């Protein structure tokens, strides 16, 4: 390793090896700073510049030995890196404490990334194609709308209940096609997504095409929507939403990571790769498909609920097939099975088109072509799924990732 030449003398490999945690911190901070700038940027030139910078960074990480080593270091110290990432996200929120739009974007990216991690659980781990991701997301919002309007359930509990309701509906949908081949389940999810959207638009019980209003989140008397200052600082009312969003992301991330790095994760992979072998070795295919679908949709429902509460309303728009495909595009682009890849891809697919007015119209077309290119030429996406290495868990306690 020490024989790798380094273009930047101060980043000599030996120095890096001696202070791996410093390297990790610097890398994560740099990435988040770039992301924050991207979310905050207003001029198209800034956005294009940042995009170029990211592409260069990615090329370095992918192609040069130095970049690969830094990437490997971040992987080895994965738990530490994740912790630093959480702190950086909080830092971004602190830096942009008064910026409505930036915080809204941050919260949106966090919530959609949460939903995409759940899709990863279903698709990348359990091999189940869910073409109704956006429908389940909107279902979570509608559940929150109904519960905030017609019940006195405390709002944190409403998030959980929305998740459970969404998860349950998903399982009911799945039951008939559990023992059949994948494309039947795919068809059922496509049909469900279209059904939900049509029903919500045609029927006025839940507001019809205008949708429903949703009360803002409040807990212990603290109403998020009324927050305008913390101490002597003026803050945007989106700040508490941003904090809650990244917390939900962190919880979902940890939950699904834990599932992957456990016996359940191995069971899911086996069911995905080879149902014949899985059944011969005693694994119930139906059970594991239900578990993945249930947990995945429940997480999507929670994210959707908070998203609805943050925006103050929900409409059938955003639950269509195109939107579900967009979510699947995010995880394919980011790399099936890679959670941070999904975050990066969410930034690309959600944020950039908002900033670059010129390509707004062509958004769907460009992303469709991008996904096609990825599927044909680099199917593992931007970041490949890290190989599960359970040896990390054996040894002194605290070596947990």
């Amino acid at each position, binding site marked *: 390793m020490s024989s790798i030449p380094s273009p930047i003398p101060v980043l000599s490999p030996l120095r890096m090896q001696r202070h791996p945690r410093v390297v990790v911190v610097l890398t994560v901070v740099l990435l988040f700073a770039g992301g924050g700038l991207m979310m905050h940027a207003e001029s198209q030139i800034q956005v294009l510049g940042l995009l170029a910078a990211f592409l260069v960074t990615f090329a370095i990480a992918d192609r040069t030995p130095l970049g690969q080593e830094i990437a490997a270091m971040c992987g080895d110290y994965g738990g530490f890196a994740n912790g630093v990432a959480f702190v950086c996200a909080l830092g971004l929120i602190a830096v942009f404490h008064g910026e409505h739009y930036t915080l809204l974007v941050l919260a949106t990216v966090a919530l959609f990334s949460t939903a995409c991690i759940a899709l990863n659980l279903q*698709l990348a781990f359990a*091999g189940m*194609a869910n*073409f109704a991701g956006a429908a389940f997301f909107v279902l979570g919002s509608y559940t929150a709308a109904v519960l905030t309007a017609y019940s006195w359930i405390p709002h944190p509990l409403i998030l959980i209940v929305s998740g459970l309701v969404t998860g349950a509906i998903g399982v009911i*949908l799945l*039951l*008939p*096609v559990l*023992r*059949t*081949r*994948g*494309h*039947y389940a*795919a*068809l*059922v999810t*496509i*049909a*469900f997504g*279209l*059904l939900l959207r*049509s*029903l919500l638009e*045609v029927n006025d019980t839940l507001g019809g095409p205008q949708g429903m209003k949703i009360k803002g989140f409040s807990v212990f008397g603290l109403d998020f929507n009324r927050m305008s200052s913390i101490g002597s600082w003026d803050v945007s009312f989106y700040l508490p939403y941003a904090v809650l969003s990244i917390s939900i992301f962190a919880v979902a991330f940890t939950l699904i990571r834990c599932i992957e790095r456990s016996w359940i994760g191995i069971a899911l992979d086996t069911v995905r790769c080879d149902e*014949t072998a899985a059944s011969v070795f005693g694994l119930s295919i139906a059970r594991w498909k239900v578990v993945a679908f249930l947990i995945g949709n429940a997480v999507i429902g929670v994210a959707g609920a908070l998203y609805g509460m943050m925006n103050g309303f929900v409409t059938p728009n955003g639950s269509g*097939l*195109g939107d579900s*495909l967009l979510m*699947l*595009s995010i995880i*394919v682009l980011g790399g099936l099975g890679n959670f941070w890849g999904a975050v990066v891809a969410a930034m690309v697919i959600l944020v950039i088109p908002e900033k670059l007015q010129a390509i707004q*119209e*062509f958004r*769907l*077309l460009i992303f*469709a*072509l991008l*996904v*096609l290119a990825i*599927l*044909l030429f680099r*199917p593992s996406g931007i970041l490949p799924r890290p190989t599960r290495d359970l040896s990390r868990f054996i040894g002194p306690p605290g070596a947990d990732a």
Partner: protein
Amino acid sequence: MDPGIIVQYLFNGLMLGVIYAMIAVGFSLFFGVLDVIKFSHGDVVTVGAFSSLGAAGLAGGLVTLPPVLALASGIAAAVTIGALVGVIIGRVLVLPLRHAPGVNVLLATLMAGTVLREAIRLGVPNGGNPKPFPALLPGGTIKAGSFSVGIDSVMILVAGLLLVLGTHLLITRTRFGLAIRAVAQDGEVARLSGIDFQAVVLGAFALGSALAAFAGCMLGLYYHEINFNMGVLLGVIGFASAVVGGLGSMLGPIIGGFLFAGVQTLVVVALPISSAYKDVIAFAAIIILIAVFPTGLIAERRSERV
């Protein structure tokens, strides 16, 4: 109820059924030869509709053509371009990806469908809105009691039925059809027997896509209006028809197509709800029918070496 209205509904239902059947046959063909679901198929219908609009409009713009020739050029354009699109997608996307996990092909063809849709929306002037389709068929109506139907409608229906029948005959009576059935049963063995696998597969794609494109043309002539979104719904219902009828068979998708059309028509006639719910019923029917017949009315043939 006025018998005239009933017959009207019946006619509509038959029309829908033929359209669904034509699209469903394509899905079944693709699945038969390559074991893949080609989700861009619905959007090929849209391509066909807009191609025929373009050709008929173009031809009509350059020279004052009698409607018959405009119609012919429209149909020719639709079928050719539709078949071409089907073959290109097959060659560039489906064939290279057929060994990857099935969900990759699903996703890829869904994206390809999106590309087609968006290309039409962006490429055609004012593409985001419904476009009127010229009336190229002879006017006039047939009357029988209180029931009247346009001659053009009858012509369209007959054309559709003939095409479906023709495809069935092609698959069962010609050498090409035999090659398709051979490849559908066992690609490896067919290859070993000297059949040009790729040519047959692409030929099947061309056939299915041409049918779908023609259906698009028919839709334009019947409803006098087309829009860039029309393929999404039709693709889903066509796929569902093929699944419920039985993927891989010829008869299954046809039965499935008429079944869906029948359900849609019946519910709208029998229940006092507005026709705005037509789509909702269709999707609900899909979910229920798949729940009841998970492997199709005519079971999918599938074997895996253990």
